[in-house]
């Protein structure tokens, strides 16, 4: 990875003398909980299994301190563009000319019943495909702007999921497990690597302007990891809760309260010297105060020039949802720019008969026309903007969705049912080959047939690009050294540079 200048918000207050003193004294840390002292005890008790080994060792007093990866990383940041509701691979990236020929015919040997009920006949892609860029990759007219990125991207056409239900599917994509309650990939990454920017959360999740996705907070939750690693959720429209000085509190009173609290805690600490958890709490109020400055600053898009707003489509007053999503895209870029480690950007909200997300069961074309108009230009502009600023060199961009859709229409409808057996995602940026496609579904796009990959493989690859061995990143929970990739996962080396 090339050396890059530090990317931090300029105007941040420093830690107070106390905060520095408490947190930076190595000697002090060695005595605090889970610091070196704990290791001393392990030796003392002489038991191999007395204290379950955690990878990595997190200093509880400095959970956000940057931690080294296992090996040199290609990517410093990750941007996930998460399209909720299961985007049809057949209407976007996975060109199936055979399906055009077989339009209206039954699928021989196909499932009689799919997720929602009886299957209908095969249905041709609802959009025209045409070759794009130098690679000539066939991409549909549904996403003309994103299609222009064809030469920048590695497509994976052979992903599979373990479930055909949205919520569990989103859990699986974001946490590596189908049930509720497992840590999200962003939380794993924060846990592994800490934060690059001490004024902003390490992991920010930006919900779609229309609402939260079906698995909601699971997508950015900490699960059984310590709560400090959960994603912080805010968007260009919805500010972070409890960030602002509350209405009705005068700034002078707020300052007086802070300084009294500081003195009170200081005196208390003097009575209870050497207690790292007390010191960490004092420091957390200082971090909070810095976030009160840096989060509004980063969310304030008024400094963005007109041409940038225009390129993202944030000036398209005819489509307010697109404008709101475009603003989220700009926010995502600003977060990456400021060194936020993991940014999750959602496109699509909760179950709504396909009205608010990509769940095209009934009126697929009609609804996709609306959804693509929101996604396409802003998301494409985001990738281009990252590229133009040189950020794509150490930022990994992942476009993904929880599963794909069937080549048949559902019986009596104009839409496709859930299909976890073969769908597409793409990666771009740091460490990723440009303009290639990996894996293949059958000629009708029903199932992955070549280089079949699971979500575990995708997640293993993301961790790999961050310099992390997915088998070594573990956390003990109820008797199991848990991993993001469970007991599976292989890095997809074929698409890596």
């Amino acid at each position, binding site marked *: 990875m090339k050396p890059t200048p530090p990317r931090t918000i300029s105007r941040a207050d420093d830690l107070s003398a106390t905060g520095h003193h408490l947190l930076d004294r190595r000697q002090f840390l060695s005595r605090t909980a889970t610091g070196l002292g704990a290791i001393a005890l392990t030796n003392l008790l002489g038991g191999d299994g007395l*204290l379950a080994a955690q990878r990595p060792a997190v200093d509880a007093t400095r959970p956000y301190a940057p931690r080294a990866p296992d090996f040199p990383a290609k990517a410093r940041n990750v941007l996930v563009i998460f399209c909720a509701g299961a985007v049809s691979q057949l209407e976007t990236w996975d060109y199936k000319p055979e399906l055009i020929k077989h339009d209206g015919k039954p699928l021989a040997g196909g499932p009689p019943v799919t997720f929602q009920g009886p299957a209908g006949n095969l249905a041709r892609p609802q959009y025209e495909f045409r070759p794009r860029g130098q690679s000539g990759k066939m991409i549909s007219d549904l996403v003309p702007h994103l299609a222009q990125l064809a030469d920048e991207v590695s497509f994976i056409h052979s992903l599979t999921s373990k479930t055909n239900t949205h919520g569990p599917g989103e859990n699986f994509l974001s946490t590596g497990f189908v049930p509720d309650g497992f840590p999200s990939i962003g939380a794993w990454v924060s846990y592994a690597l800490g934060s690059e920017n001490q004024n902003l959360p390490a992991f920010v999740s930006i919900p779609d302007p229309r609402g939260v996705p079906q698995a909601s907070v*699971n997508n950015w939750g900490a699960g059984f990891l310590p709560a400090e690693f959960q994603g912080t959720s805010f968007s260009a429209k919805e500010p972070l809760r409890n960030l602002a000085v509350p209405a009705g509190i005068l700034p002078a009173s707020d300052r*007086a309260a802070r300084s009294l609290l500081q003195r009170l805690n200081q005196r208390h600490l003097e009575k209870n010297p050497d207690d790292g958890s007390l010191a960490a709490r004092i420091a957390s109020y200082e971090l909070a105060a810095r976030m009160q400055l840096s989060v509004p600053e980063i969310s304030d898009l008024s400094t963005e020039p007109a041409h940038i707003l225009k390129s993202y489509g944030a000036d398209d007053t005819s489509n307010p949802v697109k404008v709101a999503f475009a603003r989220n895209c700009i926010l995502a870029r600003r977060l990456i720019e400021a060194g936020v480690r993991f940014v999750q950007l959602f496109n699509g909200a909760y179950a709504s008969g396909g009205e608010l997300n990509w769940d095209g069961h009934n009126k697929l074309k009609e609804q996709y026309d609306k959804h693509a108009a929101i996604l396409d230009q802003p998301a494409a502009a985001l990738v281009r903007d990252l590229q133009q600023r040189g950020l794509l060199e150490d930022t990994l961009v992942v476009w993904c969705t929880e599963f794909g859709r069937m080549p048949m229409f559902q019986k009596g409808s104009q839409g496709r049912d859930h299909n976890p057996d073969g769908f597409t995602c793409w990666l771009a940026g740091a460490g990723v080959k440009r303009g290639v496609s990996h894996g293949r579904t059958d000629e009708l796009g029903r199932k992955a047939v070549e280089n079949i990959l699971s979500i575990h493989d995708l997640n293993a690859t993301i961790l790999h690009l961050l310099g992390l061995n997915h088998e070594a990143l573990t956390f003990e929970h109820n008797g199991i050294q848990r991993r993001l990739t469970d007991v599976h996962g292989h890095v997809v080396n074929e698409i890596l540079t």
Partner: protein
Amino acid sequence: MRPVFSPAKWLALLLVSAWSGDAAPLDAGSPTQASVQAVKGRDHWSFQPVKRPPIPETLDTKWARNDLDRFILARLEQDGLRPSAEADRVTWLRRIYFDVIGLPPTPEQVMAFVNDERPDAHERVVDGLLSSPRYGERWAQHWLDVVRYADTDGFEVNTERPNAWPYRDYVIGALNQDIPYDRFIREQLAGDASAVDAATGFLVAAAALLPGQIGADDISKRLARQDSLSEIVGATGQTFLGLSIGCARCHDHKFDPIPQRDYYAIQAFFAGVQYGERPLRSPENDLRRKEIEEIKVRETQIDRALSRLEPMARASSQPRRETNARLNEEIFSPLEAKFVRLTIHDVNLHPTLGVIEPCLDEFEIFTSESAPRNVALTSLGAKVTASGSHTSESHRLEHINDGQYGNSHSWISDEPGRGWVLFELPEKARVGKVIWGRDREGKFADRLATAYTLEAGLSLDAMTTLISVAPLRPAVNPRQTTDRFDPVVAQRLRLSISACTSLQPCLDELEVFTSEPEPRNIALASAGTKVTASSTLPDSPIHQLKHINDGVYGNANSWISNEEGQGWIELEFSSPQKIDRVVWGRDREEKFVDRLATDYRIEVADASGKWSKVAGSQDRQKYVAGDKKVAAFSLVGLNPGETKEATRLLSEKKALEKKTLALSTGLMVYAGSFTNAGETHVLHRGDPEQPRDLVGPAVLTALGSFSLPSDSAEQDRRVALASWIGDPANPLTSRVMVNRIWQGHFGIGLVETSSDFGHTGALPSHPALLDWLAGEFFRSGWSIKHMHRLILMSATFRQSSRINRASQAIDADARLLWRFPARRLDAETIRDSMLSVNDRLNLKMGGAGFNLFNSRGGLNGFPPVESFSNDGLRRMIYAHKVRMERDSVFGAFDCPDAGQSTSRRRPSTSPLQALNLFNSRFTLEESEAFAKRVQTDAGADDGKQISRAYQLAFGREPDSSERQDAEPVLREHGLTTLCRVLFNSNEFLFLP
């Protein structure tokens, strides 16, 4: 006492053999299937029988207060560590209050204890706290964390489980009553065998997919079933045995001696367990059910009486006559009259006040001559009377016929929405026209009569109706709308919707009543009625066509069409029936008002198939969203006698509904439901599509050989398993539980991994102490409170938490307990303590949870409640726990999300915690309440206020420098600012 556990009796005989022998019987069971690894692991420490270790000798013979201390001290001495000095009395008291009941002591309790010189002062506190109902509320939370209890289903829809809370209350009650732990286990696994239904909430506490969320294909269904059984197996292993049995679903356990076959043998004990609600049995509930039945009978009578008073629908689609605020001209066939009367039945709605008194500025009666004269004028000798008049300078009855127009010369009735005026002409006249207005100057358009009757005649006994504009029926109502019409014979009935307030229309129930003296709802599917619809929203478990006539109300049991703004439902009755009433609603539970049908018509077809319209929305008032002024039952158009009758019925009905609601809480419980146990197969790679050998219920081969025949009755299986787990000879059960208790007091167990006593788990820091405690536990008759008492009365617990650098260098985490490990309070304790300090804590126990969110999911998601009152000020364990959605303020303080089991909360420190606690509306409101309390207690004096605030928050007086810090803040920024700071201080937030 509990009824005798009959199935257990015979099982006990069987079990004797299962536990005979010392260590785990290597030769027992059928280890042939077990892998080498699995067999090898049986020598693991936790699988060995609990020994009774000797009490260690210590160099220091004075420090120990009980045997427990001797184990701790001996271990400290081994490494040259010394215990810390005793904590002062205030510290110990605060510590034990937070620890045992999760609330701080009041200043008065502190004073009383500090001054209590009796030798058993400590013991009195311990006993007092353990017998407080607050104890169960605090310690149940530890258990619920492990059980991953929540009041919702989890996953994408996260629907509420409105009746899950009896399990939460069961745990609180069980702890408060100190029911023996073996019984606690038995009741949670098989409480249905002893009529403790709620306890089996344990079995189904996990998140579960609802039927509609599971794919329609069989593969998806089998997978979902297997996943839900896995949750039960996993939870049972972790909770009671501290073993990750769940790991062996797909393959032999990698580290512990649990072959894959054992996993399925354990699963076979649960093969008949289903997720869902069941009636909660108890004598009290039986009485309540009976009472509800009686109320229902009366409610039906009331409904019947009221339905006779519902305005009749007019099927005609003829446009209704609109009235005009300025002027209305009524022309009719001329007739001889001495009297003319206008009766107003209804008015338009005032934009803010709703239905108010009608107003007429002038009323003119014209003769049918070539030059018509207004004979109503008082100046010509006409006399006017009225139903009643609201009199002011502008409004007087005399104004109605004084020849002057405008609001300031008008009449206003004294009754909202109605009234009449009667003119007696000076002499009989041939009249042909009436003109009336509300304000001919055009300034006012409210108070306008919209429905009325105009009559004229020669005497009051012989009036002729000249014009009649019937009142509009009330607007559609999201809760319930009734359409009454003349009796008609119907074979089929169709409700067609052509507009609704948003999205696709939703109906929760459609009812059709016969016109018999005892009307029956013949729409019910159970009455043989078939239902079809234009379309139904796909992919939804809660919105299905069959819900339209299943007799169950509410959004969660409703139908939604799949067409924007329209849709129809058609019922076909089993035979033609005479009907006169249709009742439908959007959500009888009144939680949802969107998707409401506003434009509709109802048609019926007779046996010959001829359709005719019987009712529709055309004669209803316009629906105004959110308009609460429109009553469910309208009195418009009723005469005084009917009005009185309807009012009486309505108020009786309201009282009954309230009573039913109170009686219905707690009748059902989300707990285990049980069906015949199906076959259990070993599943290759855990995949239900790859079944292998059939297995019967059997315990873990590493621990015993007990098994049941494959055809054992469902309940017997769980009873047997519970007996095996709760047997004192089981080496894991007692160790795991005493370790959980230890963890609750010291923050970390003797075994750090409290749900994993297997090979990957941590070794105990004090193995002998763990065994001594385990033995003490079952010797005490499995008394949890006995264990608390031992720990709380110990010198170990009484130590100061101050850090000693020399000791810290050796044992940073104080795992050897050279000091009491201070730590941040749990989320619930912080919230409860803030409310307690304010004197605002509502100590109401049990029952349905209060809301932390303004809506319970659905399209609105979970927007947090920001300002709490009444029930919202109850202890946090009584919050309606939404799985995966953490409370917006306290969730960040490591509240488990109930997704996976939380064996121990790892306290984290984050800026989000600081932001929430410093800036949330909750903190601000509670700071204000705190300030108010301090003011009430201490009066206006600054010094006294500071003292009182410190006493309440910290249980002590401020020192002089603290006073100096606080005084200027108090003076310049007010007491609330000081209180906000105290709530955020480390001293308030830490267990000392």
